[in-house]
Structure formats: structure tokens, C-alpha cells
């Protein structure tokens, strides 16, 4: 038998006082904080996280953050920023401290989100068919007539299940009193879900202890839920319909997500030129075995570029004839062309009325109070209180072209006064909310930063809501802009079942 191996004695180390996280120094001030209810006091669902962090040194947390950053680089999780001239991939910024929502609260939000998307889909279907809501004068007709997102080519179309927006990302925010509002709905091609999934993968890697101690709803089945939803749109009732993800290509800021979702669903990632519409009005993809029928397209390309025969004729990103194939019911398109009519920020203000009209229910999640500049009285109020308002153009996304009153200079306020006066239909305004905060690792400190939440809702034959969603956080102190294209970061979002613990 071998002799035990000789090892050196343990080196002597002097015990050092450990600087651990002290929650009494963390003060979100007038804002609602998602983790802490008062200095030194954690909310019930977050106690385990707060206790865990209390035992950590800031140094340890920073090293965990570095481990997360490294994993993000290695896994190649990137997003692309347009304004940098060249197409530069940046690593996805994620803060390791999770954002926590108690299951009980989440269940209400989940019902609210399903209610909202159900009503919005009934609304879109109505607009393109009978237009009862206009005939009943619940909504003025000229709002639809003046909407660039209302596509007359879609009138009379009947997509399967009467659903137009199959993948919706609704942005939720929480005000100082704790009320959660829907800030906006993204019914066209919402992005971010891959980052939600990757954030979870990263936090499981770097904070495994917390997953052992908490009962956190898993998010990983999104790709298979998406796949099932897309399958339910197939025009052919076959066991394995051909589903593809259609991307505008590598220069799109969300290309990473397109490739990611295609890979996770085992679907082909196609570009417009990979598809062809035959004289039989069916869609085929060009493979090395020849043309192969496509049943459902999860398209991540805007309506404008989808089909040069119908929309922008200079588009080389789309496929000629695609719209025709869809109208004939030969291919499922998610989301359907024309669905964007309902995420016009002016239509947004009618959503409570839309829910009431189609479902006979009160909205479960309220809208942020909003003022329509097209209404002279409301417009006057907006202009008089511009410095306290957030002004949004009706049809922009990604945080472009908006005014944040409290942070704006005099010059910017004057510019927007002009813009609103010139084209009131294009603007709506909301009082600047006091967005809730959560502890975020900023340099060597833990500081409160503002955040929002984008859950993803699927609707095909059935509904599905991601448990949680993508929490976006404004990394600059005091900033309310959470968009990743404008210097925002993200957090993993945990729906925690406190009763299971």
C-alpha cells in the first residue's frame, strides 16, 4: 500500500475583518424598491437573497460579476449598436443581482397580460374585418384612418385562430406607490427574449447557491412554447410542419436572437432570398435537395420589408409573393402583417376601452395615464406641463425620438413644443413616472437603479406568458432610459414562490 502523501502545513493567514454588504446603507429614497422595503428591511420574497448578500463581501460579488461578464463573452451573447458606424457586436450587459417578484403578485400580472393580448387580438381582427368598434363609436375612425400602421392590404384577412399578434412584449413599470402599469405593447417584432434566457443561464452559473434555497419558476421552456405556438399556425395538418425563423440578416441588431431562437427550436434560420413563392402561391425554401415547402414563418423583419410586391418595392430583405401566400392561407406568419396597428402609442390610450368593449372586463393591469396631443384640451395640458412629462412619438421603438421632461434641457423642451404643435397626431404624453429601483452593482457599491420589465406573451391556439421576463435596468445614476441601445443593462428576473420555501 502506498504511503500517505506528505503535504505542507496550511499557510498561516491573518484573519481580516470582512466588509460585507450592509443593507442599512442602501437607500432608494422616494422610489419603490423591488428588493428593500425600507433601509435594512428586505421584502418577504427577497429575504433569502438579501440574507445571502449580507454574508457576501463586495469583493466576492464583484468577482461573481466578472465571472458573469466572462461567461457572456465566451458564450458570445452580443447585441449590435447601429450608431457606431461599423456593425460592432457588444457584449450583453447583465447585472448579477436578480430582480425578484413574488409568485402571488405575478399570477395577477400574468392574467392581466393574457387579458390584454386577447383583447388586442380581437381588436386587430375587428379592425381588418367588421370594424364594429368604429361603428359603435368606441374609437374615432380618423385615428385608424391616419395610422400608418393600418395596412389596407390586410383588410378581410382571416389568420388562424383570429390571432394577429402571436408574440407580444409588453413593458411593465412600477410607480412609487407600488402600482404596476403597462407602459407600452410591442405587437410587431418584440425582441429580448433570448437575453432573458441567457440571463438565467448565467445566473445559475454564478449564483447556484440561491437556486438551491429558493423556489424560482423556470424560464427555459420558452423556445418549445414558441415552437408549439408556431406549429398551431400551420396551414397543413401534418405531424412536423416546416417552421423557419426569418431574419433580415447579420446587420440587424437582434441577429443574435434570431440565430439563437432558430437554433433552440431546431428551425432553419432563413433570409428573404432563401424563400421563394411558387406559382401555386405556396412558400418554399431553397435547400441543397431542391425546393422544400415552408408552413410557418416566424418573421423578425418589419412589415415594410416583408414583400416587395406589396410593401416597399426597394426591399431586398423580403420575399416577393409572401403576402399573397399568407392571404391565401398557405403559410402562417407570426406576427401577422398589420398587427402593428395596435401598438401605435395613440391607440395605446384606448386599450382599457378595448378590453372593456371586447371582453366586458375591467383591465387587470392599468395603463399609465396618458394625454393625446391630437385632442386640443389634452395637448394644452401637455404643453403647459412639458417638464414633468414623457413625450413619445406614436410609431417609434427602442427609445428613439422621445422626450423625458424632467431630464430635458430648455432647448429640447422648445424643440418638442414645436414638434407637437406641428404634428399633434404623432405624439402622446405621460406624466414622468417614478420608476421603481433595485440594487445594482455599480463599481464598488450597490446602488439603486431604475428598471422596467418586458414579459413575453404568446398567443396561438393557447396562451403562454414567460414567468418573469426581461428586466432592463438604466445603469446611469438617475436615468430612466432602460433600452440597451441607449446604455441600459439587464437583470435576471425571478418569480419566487414564497409558500414553497
Amino acid at each position: 500500500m502506498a504511503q500517505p502523501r506528505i503535504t505542507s502545513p496550511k499557510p498561516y493567514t491573518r484573519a481580516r475583518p470582512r466588509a460585507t454588504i450592509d443593507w442599512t446603507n442602501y437607500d432608494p429614497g422616494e422610489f419603490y424598491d423591488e428588493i428593500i422595503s425600507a433601509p435594512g428591511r428586505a421584502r418577504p420574497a427577497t429575504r433569502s437573497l438579501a440574507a445571502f448578500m449580507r454574508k457576501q463581501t463586495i469583493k466576492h460579488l464583484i468577482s461573481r460579476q466578472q465571472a458573469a461578464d466572462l461567461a457572456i463573452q465566451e458564450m458570445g451573447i452580443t447585441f449590435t449598436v447601429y450608431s457606431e458606424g461599423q456593425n460592432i457586436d457588444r457584449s450583453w450587459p447583465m447585472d448579477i443581482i436578480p430582480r425578484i417578484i413574488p409568485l402571488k403578485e405575478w399570477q395577477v400580472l400574468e392574467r392581466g397580460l393574457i387579458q390584454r393580448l386577447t383583447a388586442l387580438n380581437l381588436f386587430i381582427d375587428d379592425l381588418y374585418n367588421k370594424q364594429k368598434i368604429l361603428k359603435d363609436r368606441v374609437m374615432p375612425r380618423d385615428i385608424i384612418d391616419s395610422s400608418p400602421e393600418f395596412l389596407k392590404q390586410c383588410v378581410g384577412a382571416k389568420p388562424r385562430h383570429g390571432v394577429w399578434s402571436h408574440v407580444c412584449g409588453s413593458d411593465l413599470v412600477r410607480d412609487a406607490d407600488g402600482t404596476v402599469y403597462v407602459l407600452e405593447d410591442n405587437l410587431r417584432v418584440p425582441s429580448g427574449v433570448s437575453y432573458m434566457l441567457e440571463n438565467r443561464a448565467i445566473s445559475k452559473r454564478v449564483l447556484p447557491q440561491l437556486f438551491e434555497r429558493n423556489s424560482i419558476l423556470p424560464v427555459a421552456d420558452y423556445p418549445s412554447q414558441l415552437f408549439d405556438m408556431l406549429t398551431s399556425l400551420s396551414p397543413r395538418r401534418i405531424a412536423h410542419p416546416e417552421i423557419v425563423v426569418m431574419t433580415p440578416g447579420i446587420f440587424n441588431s437582434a441577429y443574435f436572437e434570431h440565430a439563437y431562437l432558430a437554433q433552440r427550436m431546431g428551425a432553419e434560420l432563413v433570409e428573404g432570398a432563401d424563400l421563394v413563392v411558387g406559382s401555386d402561391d405556396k412558400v418554399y425554401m431553397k435547400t441543397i435537395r431542391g425546393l422544400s415547402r415552408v408552413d410557418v414563418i416566424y418573421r423578425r423583419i418589419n412589415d415594410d420589408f416583408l414583400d416587395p410586391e406589396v410593401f416597399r418595392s426597394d426591399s431586398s430583405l423580403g420575399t416577393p409573393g409572401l403576402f399573397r401566400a399568407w392571404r391565401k392561407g398557405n403559410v402562417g406568419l407570426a406576427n401577422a402583417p398589420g398587427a402593428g396597428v395596435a401598438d401605435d402609442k395613440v391607440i395605446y390610450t384606448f386599450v382599457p376601452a378595448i378590453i372593456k368593449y371586447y371582453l366586458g372586463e375591467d383591465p387587470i393591469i392599468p395603463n399609465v395615464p396618458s394625454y393625446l396631443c391630437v385632442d386640443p384640451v389634452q395637448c394644452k395640458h401637455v404643453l403647459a406641463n412639458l417638464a414633468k412629462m414623457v413625450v413619445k412619438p406614436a410609431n417609434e421603438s427602442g427609445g428613439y425620438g422621445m422626450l423625458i421632461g424632467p431630464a430635458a434641457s430648455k432647448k429640447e423642451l422648445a424643440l418638442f413644443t414645436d414638434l407637437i404643435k406641428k404634428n399633434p397626431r404623432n405624439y402622446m404624453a405621460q406624466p414622468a413616472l417614478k420608476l421603481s429601483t433595485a440594487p445594482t452593482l455599480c463599481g464598488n457599491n450597490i446602488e439603486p437603479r431604475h428598471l422596467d420589465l418586458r414579459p413575453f406573451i404568446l398567443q396561438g391556439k393557447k396562451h403562454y406568458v414567460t414567468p418573469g421576463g426581461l428586466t432592463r435596468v438604466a445603469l446611469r445614476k438617475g436615468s430612466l432610459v432602460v433600452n440597451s441601445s441607449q446604455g441600459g443593462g439587464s437583470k435576471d428576473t425571478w418569480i419566487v414562490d414564497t409558500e414553497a420555501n
Partner: protein
Amino acid sequence: MLSRVAERVYWLGRFLERVENTARLILVRHNAVLDLPKEVQPSWELLLQVLGAEEAFGRLPGAPTEKNIVSFVFGEKENPSSIISSLTCARENMRTTREILPSETWERVNSLYLSVARRSNKDLPQGVRHAVLNNIVQSCQQITGLLAGSMNQDAAYQFIRLGRNLERADMSTRIIDAASAGLMGNVDETSPFRNVLWISVLQSLSAYQMYRLNVRRSVEREGVLAFLFQSTVFPRAVAHSLQQIESSMKLLPEHKGALAVAAGLRRQLRETDFSTLEGPALHDYIDALQLQLVDVHHAIAVGWFAHESH
């Protein structure tokens, strides 16, 4: 497999091979010059001739000096057949096919691109030339090795292999053509340097040692031509490349049309007697052969990349 993806990895294979061969060409030209007296040195323009880049060079300012030609072939972005241009194309084709390739390959191609791009605006003086070019050749071989050793040998792999071998065959014919026409023109049949020149031709295809092992006779025209065109064992011989192309094709679906074109060309090559092809006749033969290689490319494109709408 999508046709577009197949086409992109096919071009990835071609461009990587082109990068390697171009680097080899400059290297060999560089070495040959050092061995020869001034009056028999092949001109640097020969390099442009081999690459079919005389016209592109003429469009840019600058005399055909050694310095200008080397810079043009190495780092000139306006030159579609320069190393930097080929590398840019290889990298762009790879960006959108990353999911199906081993991730280290992207890292290698990317870092090779970055190292060449950093140098591309500078001259490539004799002192560093060998090191820089050798590094390119080695990196390309490393990438080829990575693909062979860590990628599923599926359809995607066969398309890379098709591209690589077709490019290789094309480049071999170009080198032989330039050698037999331009290079020998000013060297007398009895000149002692004639032998050295044929050796440099073999070297430019990394064929010298293999020739010795396989042919076992002195280096002379007839033997060299037969070896470089018809050898079925030497990887850079045209016949061998065609053989590889056929074997890749057989592993792909719907291969009948393309295979017939490639097999026809190989048969014809096998039956050619190179000892009877002198001077202009050889040049014409090579010209026709290059067009036939283009036919093979078209057969591949028609068979797998292009689609008639129905």
C-alpha cells in the same frame, strides 16, 4: 441544409485556400529570386499574371516594382485577389454560418484577419516577409486541420471541401501556366538555371519533396507537368483535387449532374499526353482546363445553390 448556407461555406473553403495559395506564391517568388542571377530572374509581374491581376494593378498608380507588387498582392483592398480581400470574404462568409462551424474556427479566422488587416496598409519589407507569410500559411493549415478534426463530416463539411479543392486545382493550373510560358521564356533550354526554375515551380506548390519521393527522377519539364496535372497521390495535383471533388459530391444529395461534369474532366485529364504539348499548345490546353474548372463550379451552383422558381 439551406442553399445559401451551403454556398457560403463553399466560398469560405475557396477563399481560405486562396489566401493560403497566394501567400505561398509570394513566398516562393521571394525565395527563387534569391537563388538566381539577375538576368534570368523571373519578373515580379509574373505574380500578377498568375493571379490574373494585371488589369487591376494597372488601374492603380505605381510602377510594377517589387515593393508595389508585393503590397498589392498582400494588402491592397482594391485588389479583389489580394490576401486581405480574400480573407475579408472568407470572414464575411463565416459570420453568418458560425452556428454550423466549430467555434474555434471563427476565432482563428477572425484573428488571422485582424493580424493581416493591421499590416495591410504597410509595406511588406523583405526582412519580415517570410515570417508574415509563413504565419498566414500556417494559420490556414490550422483552420483546415480544425475543420477536419472537429467538424461533423456532413453536407456542410463537403461544401467546404468542394470549395477548397476546386480553388486548389485552379491555382495549380495558374502556377504551371505562368511557369511554362512567362517564366521560361527568357531562359535557354540548356541553361543550368532551367532546372532551378522548375524546382521553384514545384516548391510553389509544396511539391518538390513529394515529386522526388514519387517520381524518382530528375526534375525536368515532362515529369513535372505529369506530376502536377495527373498525380492521384499528390494533394495539390489537379487530378487529385478533382478526385476529392468527386468524393465530396458523392456524399451530397442530387449530385448526378455535377458529378458527371467533374468526372468527365478528370477522365480527359488522365488521357492527356503532356509530352506532346509544347509552348503555345500547353498554354491553350491550360486555358481550356481553367474554363472547364469554371464549368465544375457552375455545375455545383446549379446543382445545389441556384433554384428555378416553379
